[in-house]
């Protein structure tokens, strides 16, 4: 990183962003905190209840279960998408006429509205009209994601892998193209296997983009809402209800302002913690490699 002069007038450049984000983030966040300590019947009839909603949320079994499911889901998709993304990226030819086409096809799932992703997988996986559902059943395996919790889970994971592995692959490919060719030639001279190239040449130089990939995927999978909402509706039962969906039901479904607000604050605090931990590792990397 080159030397940057100290200049507090740079604040002028940042001011518009500050104003718009203050409007769309700070004011709402303060409002959520206000709501979270009150019992609000309507805006003229409200009572201060202290931390009651927090106690209620933290002891709410459905909240804890949704949280556990959320963690399980996020780590499952991360464990699949990161290695698969790297493997796919290594397969993309670097200077072929096909390269742009492959990249565009890879980018496709990222540009599809999330509810359409849900719809696509709904019509793809249904056991009556879906290609996948019918194919699996034809192989003699009874598969029905709308009634079997395990099947619903597997379908959701398959959908998320379909939806987001491209992001990891594109990031990793961007990182791979930045590795100078001599590194590969040196590895070849040493007779390194493909595995050794990956381990000693590529992975160390991919660290930066991989941190970004893990951060984005962890955060985005942690707030997943639309796709399961469309695909399974959180069911069968509550077996695929994740945090955002539970929260949205409370907030705009039942309009429970206080409890939903307390839920939001707790949710946000965890995001803040994860985000900060990752930011530290990004900053640390920037300092190590000037």
């Amino acid at each position, binding site marked *: 990183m080159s030397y940057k002069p100290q200049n507090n007038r740079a604040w002028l450049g940042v001011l518009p962003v500050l104003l718009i984000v203050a409007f769309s983030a700070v004011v709402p966040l303060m409002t959520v905190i206000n709501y979270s*300590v009150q019992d609000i019947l309507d805006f003229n009839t409200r009572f201060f209840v202290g931390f009651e909603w927090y106690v209620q949320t*933290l002891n709410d079994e459905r909240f804890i279960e949704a949280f556990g499911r959320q963690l399980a889901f996020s780590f499952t998709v991360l464990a699949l998408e990161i290695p698969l993304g790297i493997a796919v990226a290594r397969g993309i030819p670097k200077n072929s006429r096909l390269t742009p086409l492959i990249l565009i096809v890879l980018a496709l799932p990222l540009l599809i509205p999330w509810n359409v992703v849900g719809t696509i997988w709904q019509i793809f996986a249904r056991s009556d009209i879906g290609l996948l559902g019918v194919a699996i059943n034809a192989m003699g395996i009874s598969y029905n994601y709308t009634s079997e919790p395990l099947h619903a889970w597997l379908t959701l994971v398959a959908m998320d892998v379909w939806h987001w592995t491209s992001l990891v692959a594109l990031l990793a490919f961007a990182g791979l193209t930045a590795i100078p060719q001599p590194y590969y030639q040196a590895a070849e001279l040493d007779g390194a296997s493909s595995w050794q190239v990956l381990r000693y040449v590529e992975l160390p130089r991919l660290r930066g983009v991989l941190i970004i990939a893990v951060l984005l995927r962890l955060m985005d999978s942690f707030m997943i809402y639309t796709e399961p909402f469309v695909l399974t509706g959180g069911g069968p039962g509550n077996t695929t209800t994740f945090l955002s969906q539970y929260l949205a039901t409370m907030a705009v479904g039942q309009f429970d302002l206080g409890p939903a607000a307390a839920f939001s604050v707790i949710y946000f605090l965890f995001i803040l913690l994860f985000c*900060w931990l990752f930011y530290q590792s990004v900053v640390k990397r920037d300092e190590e490699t000037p």
Partner: protein
Amino acid sequence: MSWMAWTLPTAIFFGAIGFSLLVLTLWELKSPTILRKGLLPIATTRGDRFFISLLSAAFIHLLWLGLVDAPVYPATAVSVLVAAGLLKWG
């Protein structure tokens, strides 16, 4: 502003945070902070330590509310101690 549903305790809470930010800014202008390595595994500035203190305080309170069925004042006391420790030695 009625839709924001203000209460006195939350107003004091935000006021305190806003005031702290102001103090930190003025302090920073007067004597710029130095990145230093303390008890924490990373080198921190004054602002970092303040942020870590706030975040720890939040989680200490959450833990208390989730596990103990009692007034939160002990949690607040612990938070203040942790914050003081972090600001001094963190």
